[in-house]
């Protein structure tokens, strides 16, 4: 098993709101990212995956907890001390239309990392930028164009080029393909995969689209309302699903295959995702869980291996699913036993 590149240790991130309340975006998350792997972070609105990603990249200051990169606690670093580390941890953003400055030329945008860190200037920088453009599949002659003159997929390639300029060790991809057409998504996914192999990159891949995450990830963490509910190698997450939320997520995912669509169980969760300012007591999922019992409302389950799972497969649930268990007929029972 490879060395740990990034370690998240009981991180919490809270945002104050205009009223006295506080949004608990990340409510105590611990995980590790190993060198060379792709860790998928998946979840729905309000699960905190984007906030967690930004805490990992130290774009947000954590409310509590720490983030260790290559053995150093980066949450304690000042902005100045953090700067050299920024070469090693990069981010690819979701919105190809918003993450590029519309008033700057593309060559200048991709060249930013070189000028910010005083690595190259003038013609040398231009050369490096054009190499990067070719690397990601853009025409280097378009160096002087503006973002508006590129398509969504091409803009995302520009974002990738910018992120890779300084050969980072860890790249955090925040929904990198969600805003793209399906046929273009595949192009970008392939590109990311090729670059990972060529440059020995480690990815944290965030998405709400479970089918994409499944395709790219070695391990997947499923998040709900600020906490990780299940963390496992990809195959085990799908083949040996333990957490009811994961199972519901999987069953809700539309599959482009009529036979499967017709035959599979549909678990329709009731209600909405609760508010992150006032999360449910105990297990945060218990209000919508088909298997909820009384103790689920009292105590928070710990993320740890359950049943006969290996140590890499961790679930936060008091009543994890067995393989083949039919959840569509389950009924919650919150009465005292």
């Amino acid at each position, binding site marked *: 098993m490879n060395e740990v590149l990034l370690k998240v240790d009981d991180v919490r991130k809270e945002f104050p709101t205009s009223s006295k309340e506080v949004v608990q975006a990340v409510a105590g998350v611990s995980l590790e990212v190993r060198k060379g792997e792709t860790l998928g972070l998946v979840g729905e609105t309000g699960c905190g995956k984007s906030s967690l990603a930004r805490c990992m990249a130290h774009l947000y200051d954590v409310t509590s907890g720490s983030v260790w990169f290559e053995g150093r606690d980066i949450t304690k670093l000042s902005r100045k001390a953090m700067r050299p580390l920024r070469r090693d941890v990069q981010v690819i953003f979701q919105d190809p239309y918003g993450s590029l400055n519309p008033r700057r030329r593309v060559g200048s945008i991709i060249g930013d990392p070189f000028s910010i860190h005083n690595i190259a200037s003038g013609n040398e920088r231009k050369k490096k930028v054009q190499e990067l453009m070719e690397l990601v599949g853009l025409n280097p002659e378009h160096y002087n164009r503006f973002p508006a003159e590129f398509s969504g997929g091409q803009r995302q390639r520009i974002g990738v080029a910018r992120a890779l300029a300084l050969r980072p060790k860890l790249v955090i991809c925040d929904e990198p393909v969600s805003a793209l*057409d*399906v*046929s273009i998504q595949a192009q970008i996914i392939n590109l990311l995969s090729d670059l990972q192999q060529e440059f020995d990159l480690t990815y944290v891949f965030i998405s709400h689209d479970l089918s994409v995450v499944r395709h790219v990830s070695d391990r997947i963490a499923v998040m709900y309302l600020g906490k990780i509910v299940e963390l496992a190698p990809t195959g085990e997450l799908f083949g040996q699903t333990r957490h009811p939320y994961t199972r519901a997520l999987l069953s*809700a995912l*539309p599959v482009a295959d009529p036979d499967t669509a017709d035959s599979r169980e549909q678990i*329709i*969760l009731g209600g909405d*995702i609760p508010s992150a300012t006032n999360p449910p007591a105990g297990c945060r999922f218990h209000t919508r869980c088909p298997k909820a019992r009384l103790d689920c409302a009292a105590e928070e389950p710990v993320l740890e291996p359950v049943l006969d799972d290996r140590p890499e497969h961790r679930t936060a649930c008091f009543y994890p699913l067995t393989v083949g268990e039919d959840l569509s007929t389950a009924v919650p029972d919150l009465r005292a036993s």
Partner: protein
Amino acid sequence: MALLEVRDLRVSFDTPDGTVRAVRGLSFDVEAGQTLAVVGESGSGKSVATQTITGLTRGATVSGTAYFDGTDLITADQATLRRLRGARIGMIFQDPLSSLHPQYRIGWQIVEMIRAHDLEISKQAARKRAAELLTLVGIPRAAERIDDYPHQFSGGMRQRVMIAMAMALDPALLIADEPTTALDVTVQAQVLNVMRRLQEQFGTAIILITHDLGVVAEMADDVVVMYAGAVMERAPRRDIFYRNHHPYTQGLLASLPARSGDRLTPIAGAPPSLISLPKGCPFAARCPHVFDKCSEPPPLTDVGGDPRHQSACWLPHNVNEAVAS
């Protein structure tokens, strides 16, 4: 005769950069009580087509016909269209936050819509109906929530409110333009479930516009695949997935993430500009099977002798087994 028969719809816009030919000869039928999925990526023209049919596009040059229950919607005057919209044709859009008026209560908006079409109904009766509708779409405590504002509902709830409004007058046809694209996947499942239930209960026909082939597999009876403003392939659901013909359909299916580890097979290149469309087949530049005849635009022809399955492609129309996932 089908509930809605669209023949050779063409829509173009004049812009400073040139004429955008957004829809170029679209024809389809929607049968009563059935769901037609219109699939396409951005620039395919799918949204423009349905908006034009209901008279909601401005400044466009339109030709073709769209017969809804005997009336041609394309040539109908605004008064007729207003009468039909809401009462006979319901519409749901992608972003419920922008389609619902943020400053009026939900109940009021539904009641106003009902009373705009039904001049005899009393306010109380309309309100009662509004509450019934909200319950029908699965909004808990409808009687209390009827006086809430749109911002007090979550995204999924708002979409259900939109469905309730669209269904208020029991329309024969519901047009849903990317109704679940902006929603979380578990919420999407809820909303699609509501739509299915309503269709079963009321026999409403649905035109479902989407780019998500998974949603198509779950909801559609018939499918139309659009690209660059024209129909590439049209077929019943199973045929589109298991016996498809058009390289674009195949490309779309092949580019979906299937099992992990396999390299994805994307479609090379990008969609063409609708201002300077190439002659011939619009997909030719990206097609792995392109040959010389493709410089002429291919007509829609039956696949395997089945008039319900048509493909706009010069490749021989023997039924192939599809490149399914």
